């Protein structure tokens, strides 16, 4: 005999530990089954795009740090590449290598956070999260050596980076990369073959590649559905054309596939960093102030540059009217666009899978709301 149930609407968030920020979901349940989901966001809106219109091009770097605050270096890189394209600045080689190293380290840190919190949402209270955070801590220490800050780096400048890496950075990087591989091995040993993780993540929140492409979702989510799309490979920016790496693909497109792709990408990032360290050449880290002054006045026009961020295609669109500040800045925030399919992923699923799915999308509210 079936139990008679009645749909119930529940507000999850905005102040909820599992929503990774201030995010609200109005969910309608019928028993354990999710009937309808309405994402509500905007609680963290700070108007970064508008603020950028009254700041000079170098000052905006500090705003980009605060968009996706677990991958500041990648935001910096995307923004600086857009400025370089807009103003026609030729970056110096050592600066480019350094910012590639920094941004790949940031990608590792971001994926570790995503994996750790996904498992936290699964109910693995503490252990995987702490192992992941321990590794991220090493990376943040390296950032502190590079630029003096751990989260809000502001390390990049038009044409390169502001300061060369100190001597103690290179041995620390060497040790850190070994530690990352060790942690990932450990993580895989106790999670990738774990029946509890399997039973909770395999086959949940499956979404087809067609749906993902139609919603213009990119990044690990798309690669977990078997679509080979990585901007580092398809449209190489910086010196990614001199680097060889594998694109890890999974075909299941469920929560487990998204977790697996992220873990494998950490390994690839470590390989990329090792190749960068081999190929880095001595020289200045930023162009001289005669070539690139502190106050850049790009010619009137516009530029859009997209990079492969930790969560997908991260693009910056800048419009210049010839002044010292951009006329308009727009950010293609990958988190916001990845959020659009959340409803389709959740409907028909179980209540217990809600936060697992939410964690596997890897949202960052700072980037969604900007």
């Amino acid at each position, binding site marked *: 005999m079936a139990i008679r149930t009645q749909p119930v609407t529940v507000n999850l968030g905005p102040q909820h530990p599992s929503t990774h920020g201030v995010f609200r979901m109005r969910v309608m349940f019928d028993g354990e089954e999710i009937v309808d989901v309405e994402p509500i966001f905007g609680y963290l809106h700070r108007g970064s795009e508008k603020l950028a219109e009254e*700041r000079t091009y*170098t*000052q905006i*770097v*500090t*705003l980009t740090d605060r968009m996706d605050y677990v991958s500041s270096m990648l935001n910096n890189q995307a923004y600086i590449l857009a400025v370089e394209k807009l103003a026609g600045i030729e970056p110096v080689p050592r600066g480019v290598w350094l910012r590639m190293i920094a941004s790949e380290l940031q990608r590792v840190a971001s994926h570790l956070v995503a994996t750790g919190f996904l498992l936290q949402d699964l109910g693995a209270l503490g*252990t995987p999260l702490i*192992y992941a955070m*321990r590794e991220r*801590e090493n990376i943040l*220490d390296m950032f*502190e*050596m*590079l*630029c*003096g*800050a751990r989260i*809000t780096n*502001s390390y990049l400048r038009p044409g390169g980076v*502001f*300061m*060369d890496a*100190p001597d103690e950075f290179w041995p620390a990087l060497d040790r850190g990369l070994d530690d990352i591989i060790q942690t990932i091995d*450990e993580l895989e*040993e*106790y*999670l990738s*073959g*774990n*029946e*509890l*993780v*399997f039973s909770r993540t395999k086959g949940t929140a499956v979404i087809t590649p067609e749906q993902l492409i139609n919603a213009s979702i990119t990044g690990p989510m798309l690669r977990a559905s078997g679509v080979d799309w990585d901007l580092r490979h398809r449209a190489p920016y910086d010196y990614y054309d001199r680097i060889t790496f594998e694109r890890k693909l999974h075909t299941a497109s469920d929560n487990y596939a998204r977790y697996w792709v992220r873990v494998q990408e950490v390994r690839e990032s470590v390989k990329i960093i090792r190749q960068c360290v081999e190929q880095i050449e001595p020289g200045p880290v930023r162009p001289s102030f005669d070539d690139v002054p*502190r106050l850049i006045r790009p010619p009137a026009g516009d530029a859009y540059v997209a990079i492969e961020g930790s969560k997908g295609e991260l693009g910056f669109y800048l419009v210049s009217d010839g002044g010292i500040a951009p006329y308009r800045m727009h950010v293609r925030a990958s988190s916001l666009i990845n959020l659009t399919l959340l409803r389709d992923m959740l409907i028909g699923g179980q209540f217990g899978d809600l936060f697992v799915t939410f964690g596997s999308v890897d949202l960052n509210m700072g980037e969604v709301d900007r």
Partner: protein
Amino acid sequence: MIGLGLPRGFLVTLKNFMRPAVTEQYPDRHVGLIGAARDAGMNPFQFLVKKPGDSLKAIAGLATVPVAVKQSSRFRGNEFTFFEDRCTACASCAKYCPLGIIEIVSIPGKIDAQEGESYKLEVFDIDIGRCMFCGLCVEACPYDALHMGTSFERSKYVRDELIITKEELNAAPKRPSSFYRPQFEENAFDPFKETIDDYHDAGRHERPSDEDLKKKWVDER
């Protein structure tokens, strides 16, 4: 094989029990009798005899010693180091600040002062409460007068106390961070152990003497 994943996972957790802890205690950590005695600078038996009260506390696990947090020398702390003798009141830092929180008022050192002659710095206020410590002002300073500091414990009860003035900056111990100051890294300057007392040591280059300045800016015209 089904059923093997869980024990394998617990083996990893067990292995991590054996690893040394990575937890950092802050602002102080608990010590036993030996640690407390070492902190007081004597051996445990002396400590037991001379300070029975403290020893009891240490044995009970209530004694603490302060610990320093591991910081890089480039750390951008919540303070600034300022050398007034190096400052020419050019206001580059104020112009470069994204938030406009640096207030500078300068007056000419004398009537009809020429360019290059010294300007007197009247007001130099930084509103730390609104500062995000991006370091752009330090990057902009052409005379290496303003540096990032390394300390970060600056919480106050009243917001007005977060505006640091020129006098406060001058009186503070000079422990500049090597953020955007490669000369400190070349000299292996450690801001957590030493201070810079002479303003000549703080710059990338010597400040030209007054005669040289006069020759360059006044006599040659």
